[in-house]
């Protein structure tokens, strides 16, 4: 197994774990945990291709990871602010109970 | 419980090793390189014994880490005595004077007391996280101490990204404080941890932003590079430290305030304000674990003061031209003593602030002004630092100062506060 395929496998498994968390968890904050795992899996791919892929003089991989980290921070901040607001209205972060628009 | 904590602590100290690289060697017995003597002796001993290269480097790093840890643990013991003596002097008391002459053995007595106390783990706590927290508090402080250049020849771990590393490991403290508060399983630690985290997150921003101008002007993230950028003297006797420029003065002052808040010291010691929430996140700790918290706090204070000295006060550079013959690490520790004394003085002088004042001060005063120092640093750079630069930069920085002063004075003057219970 080459380092590249090792890192790619790691990232695929991390992505699947994150997806599993997003699909099965009911607590909105823990769904955010799953999303962070998926984002990090993508970042690992960028770094893996930069390090073990064909030579990359423009540093595209690390640059993209830096942007992705910045956007992930923004996403977490907004997501948690929304969750707090929802919590204030419903006293719950359980997504199954957010059914007030239910017909 | 005490032994695993001790072992984990030493693992943390030794993990600094992985970061280290060797530097070139000046003469062995010059006063300049006395602090590196243990490291050199270990290296020479291992080489004489025909040890393989990786063993030599590991041994060398172990010795370097051990030097730093030994120096700062001694400094910690001394400071715990000096702090009590200084505070006592400020409050017209005598302070510790029973153990040894002038109470000089007080740290030893305290240490023995701490080590022999019973280690209480609350039944409602999670024992593993409860054990992990004090260890996680001490490790980042030691890691942060390992990248600071203490002298011309004494930089335990040379790193190109030293400043970034310092701030990155510093963030570990917040998680540790949270774990301490949560794992204790009771109210006061939880409240203290929430206060501490919100305070640390708020004050980390001005801390990092005020360091930005230094990085811009010196053009490097390496701490030794920043010290070298502050070498030389203006007009033959004024040192070229960043604190002696308009933006550097303001940024340095903000750094000082934020560092004070970041290390949870009075007047920003709400997370562990005794009269409000017992001891904050440390309430449920006793014995050696409590001592670890105490140690982590003081080592963090040393580390952040050391960073401030490196960024703004010229690191190990001497303050006057003819003094380069004195070993450079003496200058560093002299400046460290001055800065720490300033912190003690502040602690003895100011009353504790309230939590809303604390937050408002960070977000409405420190962050805007520290953001302003970044463009002002650029203006300073391009104006060449002459009389014009002084005039322009001071004018720009005076505007928010005047506005904030007027605003806060007006607010302070009137209006009784109505106390309500926390919801």
């Amino acid at each position: 197994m080459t380092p590249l395929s090792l890192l790619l496998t790691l990232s695929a498994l991390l992505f699947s774990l994150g997806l599993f968390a997003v699909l099965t968890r009911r607590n909105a904050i823990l769904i955010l945990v799953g999303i962070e795992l998926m984002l990090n899996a993508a970042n690992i791919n960028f770094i893996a291709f930069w390090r073990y892929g064909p030579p990359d003089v423009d540093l595209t991989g690390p640059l993209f990871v830096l942007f992705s980290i910045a956007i992930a921070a923004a996403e977490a901040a907004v997501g948690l602010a929304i969750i707090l607001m929802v919590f204030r209205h419903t006293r719950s972060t359980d997504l199954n109970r957010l059914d007030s628009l239910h017909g | 419980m005490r032994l695993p904590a001790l072992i984990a602590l030493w693992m943390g100290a030794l993990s600094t090793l992985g970061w280290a690289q060797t530097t070139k060697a000046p003469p062995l017995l010059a006063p300049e390189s006395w602090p590196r003597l243990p490291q050199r002796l270990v290296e020479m001993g291992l080489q004489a014994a025909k040890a393989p290269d990786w063993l030599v480097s590991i041994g060398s790093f172990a010795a370097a880490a051990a030097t730093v840890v030994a120096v700062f643990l001694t400094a910690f013991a001394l400071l715990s005595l000096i702090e009590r003596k200084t505070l006592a002097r400020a409050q017209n008391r005598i302070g510790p004077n029973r153990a040894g002459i002038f109470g000089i053995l007080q740290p030893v007595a305290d240490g023995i007391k701490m080590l022999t106390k019973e280690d209480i783990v609350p039944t409602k706590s999670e024992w593993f996280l409860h054990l992990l927290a004090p260890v996680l508090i001490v490790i980042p402080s030691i890691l942060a101490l390992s990248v600071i250049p203490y002298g011309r020849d004494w930089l335990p771990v040379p790193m190109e990204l030293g400043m970034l590393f310092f701030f990155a490991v510093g963030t570990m403290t917040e998680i540790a404080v949270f774990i301490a508060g949560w794992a204790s399983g009771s109210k006061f630690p939880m409240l203290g941890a929430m206060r501490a985290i919100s305070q640390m997150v708020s004050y980390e921003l001005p801390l990092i932003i005020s360091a930005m101008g230094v990085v811009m002007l010196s053009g490097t993230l390496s701490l030794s590079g920043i010290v070298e950028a502050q070498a030389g003297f203006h007009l033959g006797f004024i040192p070229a430290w960043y604190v002696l420029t308009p933006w550097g003065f303001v940024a340095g002052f903000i750094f000082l305030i934020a560092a004070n808040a970041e290390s949870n010291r009075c007047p920003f010691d709400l997370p562990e304000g005794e009269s409000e929430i017992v001891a904050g996140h440390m309430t449920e700790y006793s014995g050696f674990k409590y001592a670890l918290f105490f140690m982590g706090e003081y080592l963090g204070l040393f580390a952040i003061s050391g960073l401030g000295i490196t960024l703004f006060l010229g690191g190990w550079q001497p303050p006057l031209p003819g003094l380069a013959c004195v070993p450079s690490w003496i200058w560093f520790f002299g400046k460290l003593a001055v800065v720490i004394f300033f912190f003690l003085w502040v602690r003895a002088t100011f009353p504790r602030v309230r939590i809303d004042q604390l937050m408002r001060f960070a977000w409405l005063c420190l962050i805007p002004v520290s953001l302003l120092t970044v463009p002002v640093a650029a203006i300073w750079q391009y104006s060449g630092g002459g009389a014009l630069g002084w005039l322009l930069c001071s004018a720009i920085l005076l505007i928010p100062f005047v506005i904030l002063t007027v605003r806060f004075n007006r607010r302070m003057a009137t209006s009784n506060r109505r106390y309500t219970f926390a919801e």
Partner: protein
Amino acid sequence: MIPLLILSPLILLAALGAVWKARPVHAALLLALVLAMIAVLYLTVGAEFVGLVQFMVYVGAVAILIVFALLITRPGDEAAELARRPRSLAPGLACVAPVLGLLLYAIGTGVPGEAAQDCPPAMPVTALGLELFENAVPAVLAVGVLLTAVLVGAALFARDPASKPQPPIS
């Protein structure tokens, strides 16, 4: 290669814990551990700047935010979570398995067999900075605008609409 072989299973184990732990705070702390170990992974493959930034932003900000939100919302009901487990496990696996299978198939067939570079490619900070502020300026500006908007927006969102006016400072 050896550090990667050591780190990868650890990351996966911690991530599994973050996904599987019923107690929310444990899951969040394990997520912090995963993020920290990914930072170490970046450091070991030579992307030092990225690794330290990852540590600072993810462990210092994102994990703290998540933990803090958990404290404020105080999610309980571990028993309900554990009771729901058996029912959600099968559909979850059924959805994840094809994705994982596809990814692993792509990795198995598409990746060249031999490593392309032996030593880590250089990533000096100055080169990264020049690249950021010369070629990627629009992206940097866009991220700056985004982060400012997020700062203001999150502050507005999180403000309690029903709260009384703040007491005066003093």
